[in-house]
């Protein structure tokens, strides 16, 4: 399936620099960045460059690391990643500044691989020395769990109102994690029909869920009814 770009509201421009490609700056909702200037500032050790780098990537890196490795020692990992990125830029490893986003991704992925390798090594080498293995709890806290359960209960009644066919699509896609191709093949659907049915099911789901959540006084988490 081709990922259709989705345009988000225009974010205010961060600066008035005109030396960069105007197409890059014109992307709605995406921060306008002068990549060459940013890389130069980092190389020169300027605080402005470091701040912008941190502001630009900290949330994304944090999300990525948390998703891949869990929430334990997250701050340290984010910090380590930034140090590696900054040092690499200063050493001149990034030759094309406009490729900074891809460069950061490569560094983050290597970091994840290194953490996993280290964890495997530690577990293998130090098993005898430890009385037990510490396993990080990836579950949400009790309050979040309770909220999730409550929302899921409301969603369940919303799901019951869907047609058998629409519900089947959702079950296959979300629960059984079947690919779109498999669902289309087994349910005799075209790609367009699949998207339409899933979108309709989600829209109806969102609509019912919104009403139920509104009537129950709980803040809605599922109000987006647009096509998935």
């Amino acid at each position, binding site marked *: *399936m081709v990922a259709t770009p989705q345009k988000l509201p225009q*974010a205010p421009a961060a600066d008035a620099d005109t030396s960069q490609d105007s197409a890059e700056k014109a992307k709605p909702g995406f921060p306008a960045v002068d990549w060459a200037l940013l890389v130069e500032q980092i190389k020169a050790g300027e605080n402005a460059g470091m701040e912008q780098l941190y502001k630009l990537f900290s949330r*994304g890196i944090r999300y990525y690391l948390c998703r891949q490795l869990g929430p334990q020692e997250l701050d340290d990992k984010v910090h380590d990643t930034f140090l590696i990125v900054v040092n690499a830029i200063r050493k001149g490893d990034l030759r094309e500044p406009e490729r900074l*986003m891809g460069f950061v991704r490569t560094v983050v992925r290597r970091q994840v691989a290194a953490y996993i390798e280290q964890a495997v090594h530690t577990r293998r080498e130090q098993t005898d020395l430890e009385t037990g293995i510490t396993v990080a709890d990836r579950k949400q806290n009790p309050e979040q769990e309770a909220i999730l*359960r409550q929302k899921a209960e409301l969603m369940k009644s919303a*799901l019951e109102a869907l047609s058998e066919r629409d519900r089947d699509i959702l079950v296959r896609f979300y629960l059984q994690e079947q690919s779109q191709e498999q669902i289309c093949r087994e349910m005799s659907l075209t790609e367009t029909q699949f998207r339409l049915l899933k979108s309709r099911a989600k829209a109806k789901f969102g609509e019912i869920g919104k009403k139920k959540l509104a009537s129950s006084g709980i803040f809605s988490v599922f109000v987006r009814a647009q096509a998935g």
Partner: protein
Amino acid sequence: MTDAYLDHPSEDALERYLLHMATETELETIETHFLACEACVTRLEALTEEVAVMKTALTNLQAKKVPATSSPFWRKWFTIPNLSFAGAAAAVILAVTAAPNFIPAQVTLSAHRGADVVLVPQGRPLAIDLKGELPDGSAAVEILKGTGEPVWSGTAADHNDEARVSVPRLKEKGIYFIRVYAPAQAGSDRQLLQEFQIEVQ
């Protein structure tokens, strides 16, 4: 830098990313983008919760279906969609049990060697077709219990080597014999032509 990294991924693409269904190319595009896009991280976080709620709700719904199948058998017949099936089933049962008591059971008897026994229903009138070498004109028919006790007698009209006879209900289960006689001649006993065996069940 290519525009693909600057464009916000569609919700479909983000869902595939969260469900580990994205292709390598898509993965590269999405990850490279959201690492520098707070808006998309926010979308991902919301979508993560949305997917979790959806999965939990669907799991609960699936789990709810299982006990429903183990509920008492009779209960599901009283749900609205099943009432029509229940009605149809009742009609069939009525047709099979009650109605045939008034409709003669069709029985065909053929004369041949062997120990074949024709099964006929208990308590229903019988319309018996007798096949074989039968006398011209009407033939006398007699029904006896397995013990030799006569139960019924009458006549059957011959029609193209087939005699048709209507027999009242045989109320008792067991073996019966049906005998077909040639019409009695003056001064002589009637001649037994055929004997059939039936079992009433």
